[in-house]
């Protein structure tokens, strides 16, 4: 059975509109029902988790039922928080007359492309690293492209900071050699080793170190088969199939473990109209293609339901067929 052996961290990804939120909140409800403390996090800027769980959610963790908590990450809020922190730090360093200028600059920086993504990434990494007492954390993610980028980011970022740090080492060696000759000139105005300057460099480097270690730890967790797996959701149609196959390929590249593929909205085989019979034939065709391409990946089928499934009670009763 899937749920007994499922990893502590679960990402649910796939093309837009295939039912990621329904599947992820169904997994979460089932786990909570088994008595495991579970947190479900929506990272899609267009949140639909509230709608699926039928509970009003926000950017603070909300308790949904016993053992189940949920949160919808709000990138705008996270960005604002990040810049608020920078602003506070600046206040203690900058000359007061520079302040309006700096504020203006920070305001504009909030709009830079990638700022929201970066903010979201950081938040996700923090959540991954401090799991608190949750046995399972489930990410209901944005459509595939965003998610894959997000999962690749920690390794890119840690490589970048790594490079910078290496360079710091060299810089320190040179600094040590140069300092000897500055010994007799401590109060010279342009002394690059004046204590206040040194102090600032140290602080800046410490900040970077902090970042690097966060990304490295998150990356370790993401690539650990025993900790993290991603489940791809698709419906039995051509486009979602191709997207799933591509996503599977890409995830392999980033050594992220694909736990299985959910095929959602399966229609029953017995149909009495030609239209629906054609659909069934098409479905069989798609499923066989999927099996041919990914023979060793676990596949979980979920039947198409005649009504909308919302709320914990209904979600936890969704049937996963293997």
């Amino acid at each position: 059975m899937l749920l007994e052996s499922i990893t502590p961290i679960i990402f649910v990804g796939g093309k837009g509109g295939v039912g990621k939120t329904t599947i992820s909140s169904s997994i979460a409800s089932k786990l909570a029902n088994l008595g495991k403390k579970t947190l479900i996090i929506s990272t899609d800027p267009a949140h639909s988790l509230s709608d699926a769980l039928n509970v009003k959610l926000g950017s603070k963790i909300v308790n949904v039922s016993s053992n189940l908590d949920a949160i919808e990450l709000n990138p705008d809020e996270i960005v604002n928080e990040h810049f608020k922190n920078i602003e506070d730090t600046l206040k203690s360093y900058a000359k007061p007359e520079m302040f309006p200028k700096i504020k203006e600059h920070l305001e504009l920086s909030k709009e830079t492309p990638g700022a929201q993504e970066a903010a979201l990434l950081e938040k996700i990494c923090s959540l991954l690293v401090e799991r608190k007492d949750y046995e399972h954390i489930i990410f209901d993610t944005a459509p595939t492209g965003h998610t894959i980028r997000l999962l690749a980011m920690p390794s890119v970022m840690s490589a970048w900071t790594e490079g910078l740090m290496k360079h710091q080492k060299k810089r320190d060696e040179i600094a040590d050699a140069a300092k000897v000759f500055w010994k007799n000139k401590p109060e010279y105005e342009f002394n690059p080793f004046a204590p206040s300057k040194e102090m600032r460099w140290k602080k800046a480097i410490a900040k970077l170190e902090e970042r690097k270690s966060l990304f490295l730890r998150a990356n370790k967790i993401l690539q650990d088969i025993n900790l993290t797996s991603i489940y791809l959701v698709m419906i039995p149609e051509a486009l979602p199939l191709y997207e799933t196959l591509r996503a599977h390929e890409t995830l392999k590249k980033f050594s992220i473990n694909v736990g299985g593929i959910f095929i959602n909205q399966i229609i029953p085989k017995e149909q009495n109209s030609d239209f629906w019979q054609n659909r069934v034939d098409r479905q069989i065709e798609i499923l066989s293609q999927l099996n041919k391409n990914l023979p060793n990946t676990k596949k979980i089928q979920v039947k198409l339901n005649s009504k909308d499934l919302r709320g914990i009670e209904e979600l936890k009763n969704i049937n996963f067929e293997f």
Partner: protein
Amino acid sequence: MIEKIKSFLEGLDEHYQAPYRSALTKSYQEENDFFMLMAFAESLGVQNPASFYTMELLPFLLEEFHAWHKRMGMQHSLIEHFGCC
């Protein structure tokens, strides 16, 4: 007399040390400049995956930033709206 000898010795010291000090300080500064370039590449229009994160180094490197763009031969701050000068 002792004073004179002392200051002569100091001058001698300086005479031998100054070239080394300037050379080493220069290469230290070059290293710093490279760091600044990496951290604030975005301000020169170079794509930087980490610009959102290097932003928070700015508070610590404000003065450094000003000295840097001056050394790089740019009279004015290269971050628009960011007037260190």
